[in-house]
């Protein structure tokens, strides 16, 4: 019997259940829509401001980020960089929410024991439970980001648009987003493996987003400037972290304890 068949079957089941869960579906669809709405509304509001509303010069770190632009267009570029980071929260939020239900949800629905009684191995089960939330999380991220880019291209001045789709952000969206999704999924799964309540698991797993919040504040204050080397370093760190978390997840997932100690 094929390991890939078992993993595929379980992923298909997870996605079918996702389509039947209003809460999870609302998360997958709602989070990127909200981010697109907030980002677009902010950018359009700033665009409608008078050219020099305060008369004060912009801070040096903003000007450094704008690379030649000043005034409202520079504020737009600065805000856009914040929203880029906001979009990078999507692959953290969605997969962890789905993954948090992954094990404890099955346990509460009493479906875990029949599942564990099959020849599926722990690694196969965890792989399916990791891929299933990760894919919608990454797709939702890319969809949201693409929608926002489309709106930006349609409404922003060309010089601003030129600063939106830059190599660091493209790298972040293509490579860092899936790695971040894997990171939050594995944390969600581990918490779910040791929890008795899906909501509690979701809340604890949500803490995994904190490092990204730190990055947002770093950029807001001008302490961190997102660049291609930074993104590559971030990806490398995430790769190592993900590998470590995968190993940890397989250790934390104790089939016996999950069956016998949870009541």
């Amino acid at each position: 019997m094929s390991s890939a068949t078992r993993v595929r079957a379980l992923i298909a089941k997870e996605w079918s259940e996702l389509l039947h869960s209003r809460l999870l579906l609302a998360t997958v669809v709602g989070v990127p829509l909200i981010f697109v709405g907030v980002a677009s509304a902010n950018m359009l509001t700033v665009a409608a401001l008078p050219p020099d509303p305060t008369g004060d010069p912009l801070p040096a770190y903003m000007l450094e980020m704008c690379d030649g632009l000043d005034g409202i267009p520079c504020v737009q570029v600065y805000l856009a960089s914040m929203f880029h980071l906001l979009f990078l929260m999507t692959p953290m939020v969605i997969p962890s929410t789905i993954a948090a239900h992954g094990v404890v949800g099955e346990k509460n629905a009493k479906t875990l024991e029949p599942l564990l009684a099959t020849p599926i191995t722990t690694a196969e089960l965890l792989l399916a439970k990791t891929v299933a939330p990760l894919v919608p999380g990454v797709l939702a991220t890319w969809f949201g980001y693409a929608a926002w880019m489309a709106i930006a291209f349609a409404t922003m001045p060309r010089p601003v648009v030129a600063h939106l789709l830059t190599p660091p952000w493209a790298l972040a969206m293509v490579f860092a987003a899936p790695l971040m999704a894997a990171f939050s999924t594995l944390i969600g799964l581990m918490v779910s493996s040791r929890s008795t309540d899906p909501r509690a698991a979701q809340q604890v797993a949500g803490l995994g987003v904190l490092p990204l919040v730190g990055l947002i504040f770093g950029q807001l204050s001008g302490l961190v400037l997102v660049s291609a080397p930074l993104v590559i370093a971030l990806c490398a760190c995430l790769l190592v972290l993900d590998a470590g978390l995968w190993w940890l997840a397989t250790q934390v997932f104790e089939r016996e304890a999950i069956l016998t100690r949870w009541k």
Partner: protein
Amino acid sequence: MNAIIAHELTRRFDDRVAVDHLSIEVAPGEVIGFLGPNGAGKTTTVRMLAGLIAPTSGTAEVAGFRIDTQVVHVRARVGLLTETPGLYDTLPAAQNLRLFAHLYGCDDVEGRIRRWLERFGLWERRDDPPGSFSKGMRQKLAIARALLHDPPVLFLDEPTSGLDPEAATVVRDAIASLRNDGRTIFLCTHNLTEAERLCDRVALFKTRLIAVDTPRALRDQLFGRQVAFHVGRADDALLAVLRAVPGVIEVARNDSRLVARIDDPEATNPAAVRALVAAGADVRFVGEVRHSLEEVYHELLGARAGTP
């Protein structure tokens, strides 16, 4: 080779012993009832034999594979109906089965799904989610799921627990229909009527194995074979007459009946009837006293199961 061979199987949870040195053998095609009160360790035993949890000590072979070193092979060859059906309530019935058919690596997945759904009368409801099913239908779907991969050994853990009498009958009929498949069935229950109807042998269990045999043999061992002579007026004289018949071990009077313990009623009854008639008794009819499995259960588990 036996389908299940357990040798000194023991499972502890911290300081508590759930299963204590269980040794039992179950033949291929046999239906064995595993009887015991709540908390006796029945589910723990099933989980060990189905390869879900490991024993603390002892070992077992199920369908020819060891539960400690060949656990994936064991899981592939047993079907398990858990205490609750554990169905994906939002997914269609057929999709519930499809998932497990793939997990078990079955061929002809759609054919198998159709075969088992038809067998249990659920084919017409294949596109409906089990959340909309009655309890009996849900349990039948869960049994179908346990049978999808044609396992030679089937574990059923309290299959009629929590069902109303009508649903329980539906499920019992479904289990009875499996008897002819030549499959070994390990039926955990505390429903004694169910065990008596469905099982070839029963094992009485409360942390330790108390007794295992056919219901009839257990009754005979415990109560001996008893024959009731309905004589209209059972007095001391007839009691003495019956007691004097060779082969009669013990006689008691019970209203209009004389109840005799006899080792071999087929050989002794004619002489006993002749003696009673000769003594002036109006023998109206003679019948064997049937003790229920419930009496056996209470006698054995009440008297001998003082151990934790």
